[in-house]
C-alpha cells in the first residue's frame, strides 16, 4: 500500500474541533475590528438609546424607584439585538462568497465556521454591554448587586446572548441577501420593546400586555433587574433560564439543519 498520509495527522476530534473553532473565532473577530463602522453602531446605538430613555422618555414613565435603575437591564438586552444583525450578515456573506466551499473541502470541523461567528458575537456583545453599563454608571445608575449577583447577571446575559447569536446564525443562513439577513434581525431588535424592559406592562393594552408577559424578554429582564437591584426574581429566574436554554437548543439544531440544506448544492 502506497497511500500517502494526508498532510494533517488525524488529531483527536475534540482537540481539532477546539483548534478549528479558535481559528474561526479569531477570523470573525478580526473581521469585526476591520469593519469598525458596524461595531460602532452596535455599541453607540444602545448607549444613545440608554440616554434617550433616561433623559427624554424617562421623565414621563412612572416606575418604582429611579427610571434609570429600571431601564438599564433592558438596554443591556437590547445590545444583543444590534449584535444580531452583524452576525446574521457575516454568516450570510460566508455562505454566498465561496469561502464556505473552501472550508468544507478542508479536513476541518464543519461546525467551526458557525461556532466562530457565535463566539465572536459573544465577545462583541460583552464589550458593548460593558460600555453600556459604564455609561449607565456615569449617568446615575446605582446597582445594589453583590459579587454573586453580578456573577448571576453575567451568566444569564451570556446565555441570552448565546441564544440570540445562534438565532442570528439561523437568520443569516435563511436570508437570500445581506439586506434580508440584516432585516430579519429587526425582530430580535423589536422584542424588548414589547416587554417589561422599558415600560411596566401594566400600562399596555390587554393584548400587548398578554404578549409581553409571555415572551422571553420579560422574565429575563425581570431576573436581571432583580439581581441588580436586590429584588427577588423568584419563578421569573427559572422561566428566564428555561427560555434561554430552550431558544439556544432549538436555534442550534435549526442552524445545523439550515447549514446542511444550504450547502447541499
Amino acid at each position: 500500500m502506497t497511500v500517502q498520509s494526508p498532510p494533517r495527522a488525524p488529531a483527536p476530534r475534540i482537540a481539532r474541533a477546539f483548534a478549528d473553532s479558535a481559528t474561526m473565532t479569531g477570523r470573525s473577530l478580526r473581521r469585526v475590528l476591520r469593519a469598525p463602522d458596524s461595531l460602532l453602531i452596535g455599541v453607540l446605538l444602545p448607549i444613545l438609546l440608554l440616554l434617550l430613555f433616561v433623559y427624554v422618555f424617562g421623565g414621563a414613565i412612572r416606575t418604582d424607584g429611579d427610571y434609570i435603575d429600571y431601564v438599564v437591564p433592558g438596554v443591556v438586552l437590547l445590545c444583543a439585538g444590534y449584535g444580531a444583525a452583524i452576525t446574521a450578515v457575516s454568516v450570510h456573506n460566508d455562505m454566498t462568497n465561496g469561502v464556505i466551499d473552501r472550508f468544507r473541502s478542508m479536513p476541518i470541523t464543519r461546525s467551526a465556521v458557525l461556532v466562530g461567528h457565535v463566539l465572536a458575537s459573544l465577545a462583541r456583545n460583552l464589550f458593548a454591554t460593558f460600555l453600556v453599563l459604564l455609561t449607565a454608571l456615569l449617568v446615575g445608575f446605582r446597582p445594589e448587586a453583590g459579587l454573586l449577583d453580578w456573577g448571576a447577571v453575567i451568566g444569564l446575559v451570556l446565555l441570552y446572548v448565546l441564544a440570540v447569536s445562534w438565532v442570528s446564525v439561523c437568520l443569516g443562513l435563511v436570508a437570500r441577501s445581506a439586506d434580508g439577513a440584516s432585516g430579519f434581525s429587526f425582530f430580535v431588535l423589536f422584542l424588548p420593546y414589547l416587554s417589561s424592559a422599558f415600560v411596566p406592562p401594566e400600562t399596555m393594552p390587554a393584548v400587548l400586555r398578554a404578549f409581553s408577559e409571555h415572551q422571553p424578554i420579560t422574565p429575563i429582564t425581570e431576573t436581571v433587574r432583580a439581581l441588580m437591584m436586590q429584588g427577588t426574581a423568584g419563578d421569573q429566574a427559572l422561566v428566564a433560564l428555561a427560555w434561554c436554554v430552550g431558544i439556544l437548543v432549538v436555534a442550534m439544531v435549526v442552524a445545523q439543519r439550515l447549514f446542511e440544506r444550504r450547502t447541499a448544492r
Partner: protein
Amino acid sequence: MTDDASIHVAGLEKAFGRTAVLRGVDLDVTAGTVYALLGPNGAGKTTMVRILSTLIPPDAGRAKVAGFDVVREADRVRGAISLTGQYAAVDELLTGEENLVMMGRLGGLGRAGARTRAHELLDRFGLGGAARRRVATYSGGMRRRLDLAAGLVTRPTVLFLDEPTTGLDPRSRQEMWAAVTELTREGVTVLLTTQYLEEADRLADRIAVIDGGRVVAEGTPDELKRGAPGECVELRFATEDDYRQAAAVLAGAGVHPAPEELLLTVDADGSVGQIKSLLDRLDRHDAVIDRLVLRKPTLDDVFLTLTGHQTQPEEIHR
C-alpha cells in the same frame, strides 16, 4: 491499490430536483498531470468539481480521489486536495498574509510553521510586497493568485481549479496560467474547468469536453483540435461585381460562397504565404476586397462539430 494523486470517476450521476446535471461521467486522470473539463456554462463542470471535492454526494456512480472514495472516505480526500472555486474565497478584510496563516492553522500547522509557509507562497506568487495589505486593495488577478496560494498551504496532492481565470483581464490570465504551469512542475495533479479552449490548450495534458452532463469528447488538445474546423479567411466585398469576380477567380475546394452577404469564406492553413497568394490572385483580376477577417477555431466551432449544437446560454448556478 490506486496510485497517489490520481482521479478515477465511473458512471457519475447527479440531479438537482428534476434537472439531470451529470448523466454518467467516466474520467481517469493520471497522477501529476493537468486535466481540463471544457464546456459551456451549465454543462456540469462545477457540479463535477463539487462532487470530487466532497462538497456534495453523487446520486450514482463512484469517484476516487488520491486513492480515497469521495463519499465513504471524504475526510481523507479533504486531507489530500484543495479547491479553488469560481469566486476567490479569500477574506477581503484580512491581509494576504493573514489569509494564508489562517489556512495553515486550519490545516494543522503551528503558528510559526503557518507563518513560514505563508511567506514562502506569497513570494512564489509574486505577492510578497502586498503581504501586509488588505485583500480588498488587491487587483482581481492578485486575488486569484492569493486564492490559489491559499489552496496550496497544506501541500495538497490533487488540486481542483474551478474556472480559474473567468473574469480576469488578459494579463492576469497569463499570470494565472504561469502559476498553474509552475505547480505542475512539482508533480501536483490538477483538474481544472474552463470555458476557454485556449486555456485548456495552454494548460492541460488531456481535455474532456463536457456537454449536457456527458463527456462528448476526450483526448489531448491536439487530438481535439483536429476534430474542429481549422482557421479560415473571410472575404467581404462592397459590390456584387467584385464578389462575382472574386468567386469566379477563387472557385474550387475550400471556398464557401455566401452570395446574399457578398461573403467568401476560404479555408486557411494559418500561413502568411497562403493569404498573400490569395490576395495576389484577386488583385490581378481587380476584385476589390472590402474587408478581410482571419478566424481561428473557437470553442463554439469545437462544440458545433462535437455536439451539433451551439453552446447553451448560461444556466445560473446557486
